[in-house]
């Protein structure tokens, strides 16, 4: 530096050394996610379950609806890997096919709650005033009803017919989970919007004359989304278990539909003598729930700057 630096206005050209390429917060999060083994384990499980849901025939060519009554309650063997259940169905095949119901319910209920809860949360947090008051009171009301109780009440009030189509029943379960699941996300979203809103970059955009929609889209949402994504991922696991519970109670999916909850329910009667019938569907159910919860945890760790 020479004499010219006495009035130095343009001298600060070097960035804090070392960071040569552009690094966004998202790419930082991704880098730390990549190093986390829990992330990879949960992703592997989730990919496996997704494949089961979409192409069950990839995993088995045994027809899950084919009952071999005389082999009922058979223990695991070379031709029926997980054994056979009370009706003589192949448990392996039925467990694979059962993934579809769980994944469908989990994924769609999560998408629906994110859309409804996210929108409500943004409206309440960003606009405030009476809109906030209304949304907050509504979420309070829904909050008072536990998810499972709400599900039971709803499904008991609108029971399934024996011949209701599969998708209608799945749709009903998704609907009830969405109705009772969005308030949690709305609250979460509202509070993160409230945290983001006072930041000067939001004020700067207002000062530039940006429309509310632009501010929400460009500034508020990208900075407020992370906690909701984490919780929505964890919720996905919760929804899967609630679906199984409803089916177990006989008010969600009912036979002949194939689902882990139905399988567990059927297995209970033979619990003492042939526990393997219960073991495999419950194991898959637990793994699926666990996988989503682990993924949520891993994502949270990656987005939380304090852990980095």
């Amino acid at each position, binding site marked *: 530096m020479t004499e010219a630096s006495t009035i130095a206005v343009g001298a600060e*050209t070097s960035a804090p050394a070392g960071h040569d390429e552009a690094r966004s917060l998202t790419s930082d999060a991704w880098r730390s996610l990549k190093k986390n083994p829990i992330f990879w384990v949960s992703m592997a499980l989730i990919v496996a379950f997704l494949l089961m849901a979409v192409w069950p025939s990839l995993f088995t060519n045994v027809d899950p609806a084919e009952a071999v009554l005389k082999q009922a309650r058979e223990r695991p063997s070379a031709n029926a890997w997980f054994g056979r259940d009370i009706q003589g169905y192949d448990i392996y095949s039925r467990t694979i096919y059962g993934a579809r119901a769980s994944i469908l319910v989990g994924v769609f209920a999560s998408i629906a709650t994110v859309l409804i809860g996210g929108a409500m949360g943004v409206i309440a947090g960003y606009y405030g005033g009476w809109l906030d008051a209304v949304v907050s009171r509504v979420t309070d009301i829904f909050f008072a009803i536990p998810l499972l109780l709400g599900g039971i009440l709803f499904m008991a009030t609108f029971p399934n017919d024996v011949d209701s189509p599969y998708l209608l029943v799945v749709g009903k379960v998704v609907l009830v989970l969405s109705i009772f699941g969005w308030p949690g996300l709305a609250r979460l979203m509202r509070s993160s919007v409230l945290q983001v809103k006072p930041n000067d970059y939001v004020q700067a955009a207002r000062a530039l004359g940006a429309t509310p929609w632009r501010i929400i889209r460009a500034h508020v949402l990208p900075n407020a989304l992370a906690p909701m994504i984490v919780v929505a991922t964890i919720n996905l696991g919760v929804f899967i278990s609630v679906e199984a519970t409803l089916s177990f109670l006989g008010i969600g999916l009912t036979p002949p539909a194939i689902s882990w909850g139905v399988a567990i329910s059927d297995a209970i009667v033979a619990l003492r003598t042939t526990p393997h019938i219960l073991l495999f569907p419950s194991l898959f159910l637990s793994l699926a729930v666990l996988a989503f919860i682990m993924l949520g945890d891993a994502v949270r760790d990656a987005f939380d700057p304090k852990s980095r």
Partner: protein
Amino acid sequence: MAEAILTATDLVKYYPIKGGVLRRKVGDVKAVDGVSFELLKGETLGIVGESGCGKSTLGRLLMRLEEPTSGSVVFDGVDMYAQKGRAMRKLRRDIQIVFQDPYTSLNPRKTVGDIVGEPFDIHPDVVPRKGRRKAVQDLLDLVGLNPEHINRYPHQFSGGQRQRIGIARGIALNPKVLICDEPVSALDVSVQAQVVNLMEKLQDELGLSYIFIAHDLSVVRHISDRVGVMYLGKMAELGEEDDIYGRPTHPYTQALLSAVPVPDPTLRDKKEQIVLKGDVPSPANPPSGCRFHTRCWKAQDKCKTDIPLLELRPDGAGEHLSACHFAQPREIIETIDVSDLADGDLDTGRRDTASLEPVGDGPADS
């Protein structure tokens, strides 16, 4: 005298305090309570005051980030608070802001290019889409950043560099007025001067008018042509830089000036210090009459009942605006004019070394 670009008249901003179960209004925080001033073309008006005096609220009112409770701002002949929709958006081009905290003023998920280019996205007719990248790079260059860093993210820059990014965004639309809300107070000492110099350079090159809000009286003196001193939502004194620093007539200004530590140990015992009693009262329940009377050593009964008006009062060498019933000039600090010194022998105009006090080491000293 240059003409005014912005005229604020009787600006008032009260924030309601709600209490009780029914969230009824139980009072007001009187953040800004009747402030009037003019900003002239090309000048820098400094606004100083301690925390809670309303200076930041004033800045937000001038930006119309808040709606005033009453009062008006006329910007370039247009009544700002009467504008709506498109007209208001157009007006916003001409008046921009630089924030205090370089860490919260930039969206962490946007690149520098997105941040500095956002003004062009919002006002697409300013620069054609094709020319925007170039325009952003020119702006980065202008504020002393490497134009090649356009794709980096804010967290890859230091505080001073981030403040430059914030300034680049502020001047992107070529505004007429830039409101600077404590733009250097979050920066390190050695970086502060860089940013202050940059702001002075930009003012010269772009003909900007600044409203420079700060609590640091030294920085404000350095950059301002005129200075307003605020106390509890009111303007206590307003005048030319020399009037305020050389011939302050309001007791609060005098106390404030006397409290500023000057980086010169030889002034230790020579500088008179007025120690004020107590703390600034709450703006939710400001004192009656003159708001300063609870801490003022000159206060009389009149001060408790009559609100002193901000009007021209004699200061010994002329007159300037002051809001004190008993306004009287008092020299607090001896000013040295160093503007004649050439850049080269910039020796901070230090005092005659012969007059130095004996130097002690240890307990006996001071």
